[in-house]
């Protein structure tokens, strides 16, 4: 059934150019996500292939291609340590496609290549789904489709002029754009109606989510400052009511209990602890969080959430220390609603077990700190006074809040408190909790985010990784767990105004977290509002959103199973409509002069003169003039004008064409038969 080979004349140059252009876009996207040598490898083979075509070089032999292929595979294996997993397999595909360029000659080769390239291009979405990536992918797909069209356009002509040859490019890309535009309604219907199954169907390679950043389940000095360097968005929050003051915006994440050297960890799940009691006062703050995937279980909530009033994702649970966890790691963007109270009393009673955990310290470390604590105990200071004393120390001594603290020695807390005195929030929180525990005050570290940035364009709050923060909670008799943020003692600006205002060495921070460049920031806010909509409606379109949308459209509750039926019916209707538009011969495109001429023919047909199928305009005009001698001059004039317009279209200027069109219209309208 396939058309015979042998007609591979002049397909190559157009096809090569389209293929290389589109793959260049794809590999540019991959340059951000794969090892640099992979796109470099493409550049080499692309240039090689182009030169083969241009200079009529011979194609490399199997003896060259075979070792190259083996070398490519080995290079991937060495770089990624495996040929499987997301990064490695995509890199392998990318390298193999680059090398296959050298043996892409026939129509068959090109089509297989285009299909593989479609696959490679779409795979970029495993890494990133930003709007600009989507646009770049669309561009690459258009180019690949143009390549497919250029390969499909076989012709016997071998020698065509440069003008025609260049014109083919235009025709091909126009048609590619047209095909994709016409495919858009099908895409929309399928996108909205195709039943969404919550994935995954099978296991996902370990490294699939390696690019995601977020809070970890443990904390060491340097962790959070590292995270602060990222301008990536952690989550966005829409408030139902007014947005609380910045210093109230503590977003609760992992609560760390267990100290081991410089490392702090979450309490083990194996120790059953009673749920801490929660008394709230004041009014609730309701909000909706759109959480970016971070490959961990934390669901961040405003301190402190009323769980019963919140709408959390299914199977989320709340730990005894008010930390909210999802069942599965968050790997897609999710939305949930929270209800929190800014005034509360948490954990009125402290069980013995909890007290032990909240006082746990590794023995024989940081002697100076322990000595200070022992001194406070001997002074019989109350726990509240001890907290005050510690904060006073941070406030009054020469402590500096910085993103680039010096490395700490063997006794990290001692080194920090008595020597370097320069640190980021994790240094302050951990040394504070250490000091409290040494002094016999139950304490724990809470990590999360603090503050956020209000986007005036969408009236929502953007919380970035650079807002990551660590603070402390101490348990005080009659007051329960009380939040103490030692960072605020050192740098009140951090808590009041955000990280950009707090750091003197702010150039380390990501551009958008800084306070300079207000113009840029303004632009960015607009852009983020667009992004937010994109996230909500395109990337976050899932089963729940799908059902909600359909409910809105149909005004009736529908079951998940019914979506399939709706999909089939809509697709059939759409395909019938599209087929009618594309295939019906009545849809013959008439240019304006054709249309006016058709009116003229209708008028004459009424008078009994019908144009024969293969009769030219002039000869028909002469025949009609003989039959209708009264209107002979008009008929002849119209025929001559129409005929000249048909054949002199290209030669005339646009203005001349419009003038003659108007004249034709006038003549036909004035014709009375």
């Amino acid at each position: 059934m396939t058309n015979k080979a042998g007609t591979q004349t002049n397909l190559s140059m157009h096809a090569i150019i389209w293929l290389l252009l589109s793959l260049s876009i794809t590999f540019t996207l991959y340059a951000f996500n794969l090892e640099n040598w992979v796109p470099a490898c493409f550049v080499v083979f692309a240039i090689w292939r182009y030169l083969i075509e241009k200079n009529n070089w011979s194609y490399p032999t199997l003896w060259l291609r075979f070792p190259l292929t083996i070398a490519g595979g080995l290079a991937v294996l060495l770089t990624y340590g495996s040929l499987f997993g997301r990064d490695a397999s995509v890199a392998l595909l990318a390298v193999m496609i680059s090398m296959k360029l050298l043996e892409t000659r026939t129509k068959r080769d090109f089509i297989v290549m285009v299909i593989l390239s479609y696959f490679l291009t779409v795979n970029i979405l495993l890494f990133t789904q930003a709007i600009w990536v989507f646009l770049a992918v669309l561009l690459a797909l258009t180019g690949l489709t143009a390549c497919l069209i250029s390969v499909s356009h076989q012709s016997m002509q071998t020698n065509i002029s440069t003008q025609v040859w260049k014109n083919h490019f235009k025709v091909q890309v126009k048609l590619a754009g047209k095909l994709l535009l016409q495919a858009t309604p099908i895409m929309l219907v399928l996108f909205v109606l195709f039943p969404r199954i919550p994935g995954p169907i099978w296991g996902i390679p370990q490294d699939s989510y390696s690019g995601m950043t977020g809070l970890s389940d443990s904390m060491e000095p340097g962790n959070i400052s590292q995270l602060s360097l990222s301008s990536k968005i952690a989550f966005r929050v829409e408030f139902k009511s007014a947005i609380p003051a910045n210093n109230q915006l503590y977003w609760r994440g992992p609560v760390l209990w267990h100290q081991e050297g410089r490392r702090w960890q979450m309490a083990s799940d194996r120790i059953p602890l009673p749920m801490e009691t929660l008394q709230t006062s004041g009014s609730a703050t309701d909000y909706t969080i759109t959480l970016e995937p971070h490959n961990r279980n934390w669901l961040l909530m405003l301190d402190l959430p009323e769980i019963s009033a919140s709408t959390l994702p299914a199977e989320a649970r709340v730990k005894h220390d008010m930390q909210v966890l999802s069942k599965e790691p968050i790997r897609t963007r999710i939305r949930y609603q929270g209800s929190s109270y800014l005034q509360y009393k948490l954990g009125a009673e402290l069980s013995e077990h909890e007290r032990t955990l909240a006082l746990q310290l590794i023995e024989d470390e940081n002697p100076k700190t322990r000595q200070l604590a022992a001194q406070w105990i001997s002074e019989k200071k109350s726990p509240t006074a001890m907290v005050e004393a510690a904060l006073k120390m941070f406030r009054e001594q020469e402590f500096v809040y910085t993103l680039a603290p010096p490395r700490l020695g063997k006794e990290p807390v001692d080194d920090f408190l008595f020597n370097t005195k320069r640190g980021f929030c994790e240094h302050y929180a951990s040394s504070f909790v250490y000091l409290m525990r040494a002094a016999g005050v139950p304490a724990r570290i809470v990590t999360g985010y603090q503050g956020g940035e209000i986007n005036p364009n969408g009236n929502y709050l953007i919380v970035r990784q650079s807002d990551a923060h660590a603070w402390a909670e101490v348990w005080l008799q009659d007051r329960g767990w009380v939040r103490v943020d030692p960072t605020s003692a050192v740098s009140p600006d951090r808590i009041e105004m955000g990280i950009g205002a707090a750091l003197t060495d702010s150039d380390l921070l990501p551009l958008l977290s800084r306070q300079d460049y207000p113009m840029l920031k303004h632009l960015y806010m607009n852009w983020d509002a667009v992004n937010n909509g994109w996230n909500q409606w395109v990337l976050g379109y899932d089963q729940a959103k799908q059902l909600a949308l359909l409910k809105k459209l149909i005004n009736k509750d529908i079951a998940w199973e019914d979506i399939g039926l709706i999909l089939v019916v809509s697709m059939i209707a759409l395909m019938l409509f599209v087929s009618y538009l594309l295939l019906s011969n009545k849809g013959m495109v008439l240019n304006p002069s054709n249309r006016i001429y058709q009116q003229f023919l209708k008028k004459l047909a009424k008078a009994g003169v019908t144009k024969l199928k293969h009769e030219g305009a002039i000869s028909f005009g002469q025949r009609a003039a003989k039959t209708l001698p009264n209107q002979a001059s008009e008929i002849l004039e119209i025929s001559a004008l129409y005929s000249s317009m048909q054949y002199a279209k290209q030669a005339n200027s646009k203005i001349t064409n419009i003038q003659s069109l108007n004249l034709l219209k006038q003549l036909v309208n004035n014709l009375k038969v």
Partner: protein
Amino acid sequence: MAKGLNLSSDTSLKPDFKLNSPKTWFRTAIAIDSTTTLSRRHIYILPTRFGWLYGLLLIGLLTGSINYSISLGFAITFLLAGLGLIGMLHTWRNLANLKIEAKRANPVFAGEQAVFEFNVIDDSNRARYSIFAAFADKESDIQDIPALGESTFRLSLPSQKRGWLKAPRITLSTEFPVSLFHVWAYAETENQCLIYPHPSLRSQILPSADTDGATGQLSTTQGDDDFAGHLNYQFGDSPKRIDWKASSREQGMLVKQFQGEASSTLWLDFNATTGNNIELRISQLTRWLVDADAQQLKYGLRLPQHSIQPNSGAAHYHQCLTALALM
């Protein structure tokens, strides 16, 4: 001319349509008023092997999108699925509603390639690209057709038997624009090509006019005639006999006329040929005819049913060959 073609063994000809071939089950567009129109009932479509590969790509992308819950993956997958469907419609309409008009074919001798020409016309105001035409997947031609225009396709077929050779069913097909679908249609046209008999290969001497009572006669021997004067050039006169010098002096072309030629008449008679096989005898007669024309003789043709008066020139030559072809 094909050498060594044995005509006697070729009396049973292969039929153009094989009844046992599934291809004959398909609907074929037939010619009405010498125009064959490929209406939508005549268009067939199937995915090519690349179409199946593309389907595999879509399935892969869809499962990937579901597994990794990539919303944008769904969008792009569906866009590519849409591209496939739209591509299918475009491939279909690239062939649909074409019109085919047969053109006259030049006669050839049996054994030579009969060349059929036909115009494929677009009247839907859409340019058609990469349209293939073929006789039973053998000979093929490929052309683009401009919007509201036409292209001439040329397909050849080896001729075997004298007489009218009807063009077999034409398969028109296309895979433009995406090569994922193969669209085809069968069309019959009114193309036919006149096949002259194959001149026998044994170069026998032309019958002599001297033999009294013989039916094949050559009245005079040629070569030693005296120049007799000029005649006006007529179509079919040999260029060798044009008097270029005289022509340049006078108006119009002049042909030299030789003494005796006018009176010498060669009769090529079917009864002069020998043998039992009619085809071989016709073949023999054709050989004489060809030789006589090559020697620019004046000859007549006498067949069992009718005869053609002696004459010379191309028109006469073709008239005689036609008579032999259709005998």
